[in-house]
């Protein structure tokens, strides 16, 4: 597969909400094309009928009792916020 040409880095960076500089764009395109070429090896493996593994030891239906427990104080929870006011995180205006 022509992964090298397919890697539209602007589209991907947009999906990742990541602003790249023109220099990063050029550099990453070349480096990732090389990595993808190496990854292409996986196409040689016959995976017909093989189930995918998401976790080595899957555990299903992990439930916690629905009981309130002490959590972080408001002060602790907001301690790392870049901007805060009146016990809330301040963000740029999102609605006109």
């Amino acid at each position, binding site marked *: *597969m022509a992964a090298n040409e*397919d*890697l539209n*880095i602007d*589209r*991907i*960076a947009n*999906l*990742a*909400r*990541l*602003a*790249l*500089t023109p220099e*990063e764009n050029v550099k*990453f395109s070349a*480096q*990732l094309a*090389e*990595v*993808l070429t*190496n*990854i*292409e*090896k*996986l*196409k040689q*493996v016959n*995976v017909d009928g*093989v*189930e*995918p*593994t*998401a*976790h*080595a*030891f899957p*555990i299903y239906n*992990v439930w*916690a009792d629905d009981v309130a427990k002490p959590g*972080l104080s408001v002060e*602790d*929870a907001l*301690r*790392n*916020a*870049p*901007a805060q006011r009146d016990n809330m*995180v301040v*963000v*740029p*205006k*999102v609605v006109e």
Partner: protein
Amino acid sequence: MSQAAMTSELFNKTITELAALLEAKTITSVQLTEAVIARTQDVEERVKAFNSFDTADALSQAAASDARRAAGQALGPLDGIPIGIKDVIAVTGQPLTASSKMLANFVSPYDATVTQKLKKAGAVIWGRLNLDEFAMGSSTENSAFHTTRNPYNLDCVPGGSSGGSAAALAAGEAIATLGSDTGGSIRQPAALCNVVGLKPTYGLVSRFGLIAFASSLDQIGPFNRTVEDAAITLQAIAGYDENDSTSVKIEIPDYRAALKEKKGPWRIGIPKEYFGEGLDPEVAAAVEKAIEFYKSIGCEIKSVSLPHTEYGVGVYYIIATAECSSNLSRYDGIRYGHRSANAKDIVDLYYKSRAEGFGPEVKRRIILGTYVLSSGYYDAYYLRAQKVRTLIRQDFLNAYNEVDAIITPTTPTPAFKRGAKADPLAMYLCDVYTIGVNLAGLPGMSVPCGFSSGGLPIGMQLIGQPFKEADLLAIANAYDSAHDWSKRTPNL
């Protein structure tokens, strides 16, 4: 031995030795912690293993330990022992940076489960250890702050991503350390720095409070000077945790007792795929000599095959980057972490905060992970990788029908020079022998097994069966307790 001689090198002793000295009241935890602090102040400028440390906090924990002991309430072998923590594991009130500008000013509001467990065992939580940014790398050169040096050769890397954890221990700046291992990030630096490194079975140790990189692969584990110390440290951190939904409910055996109880002889598998092209001859010779040792104590050495080994790196760089692109989407500049001062609106804030906060390797992996998960490519990359992951896991489980453990080199070469692997793909291939263990969720250890002619450490990897850490530790201890590689210390 005079009191002065006995305390002068306290920082190079094992947990086992120090626990005995503490118990006999020959030394106090404050004396031990002061020795570790003095050693750190002496060598840290050269080693650069730490992102930060808090001497007042460590000494107050040590004083508390001494008070417990004086009151006859000592908590066990870790009580009063200074243990360094990789800077991706949360410690209340201490910085938690992941060696990233994104979290440069973050202070942890809570303890990771492993931190809580170490505190309950009485350990002195000591320092925040450097790593490749967000644990992505094999050399600590991707740290946004500084590169850690290999204590055995300051021009060489200590390995990574837990390079600070390995280097600090090797340099005598801690008595044990914790790291995390997603594709080899404990075992590879352990091998490069002449220390024991253990990655437990996925699910044995809680990941709660560990900054997530690739959630289906990440595990926390200890770095130690001996396998016995590894058994003691694992004992303290293993166990079910309701705060980690992938934590497994199993009974935790007495690992230290297992070292004596389990005597073998064991059946040991040697996978030919790990001894081929790219393996440094000195590393091969050291590991083969260790295998000879096992033969000499009556173990049956069998050739096994792990035929999908060559696909491990490809599978890993699809699955790990896919999971990282998802996990790191939380760093958006809103609730915590770096926020750009130059954004014109909320969406621009995401783009710019992430662009300014992340370093190059993290960006590359987010891009790659986003790509393999994107519409039209998901089946070709991500789904296929998950299927090959099944085959890689099956390879190991097949081998375990015939053997109790597998021995391989931990790394293809000893430590390389800083700057030697500027190309990302070359760096990724460093992890070729360690990645399979994470993909299969198995326990793996690196144990020192020699030195190169250039004086650089060599490690062998022992891979065990799922949740059979007791057997793995016993097998590793049979070698480690009969050799004294770990008694060698760097000339700093």
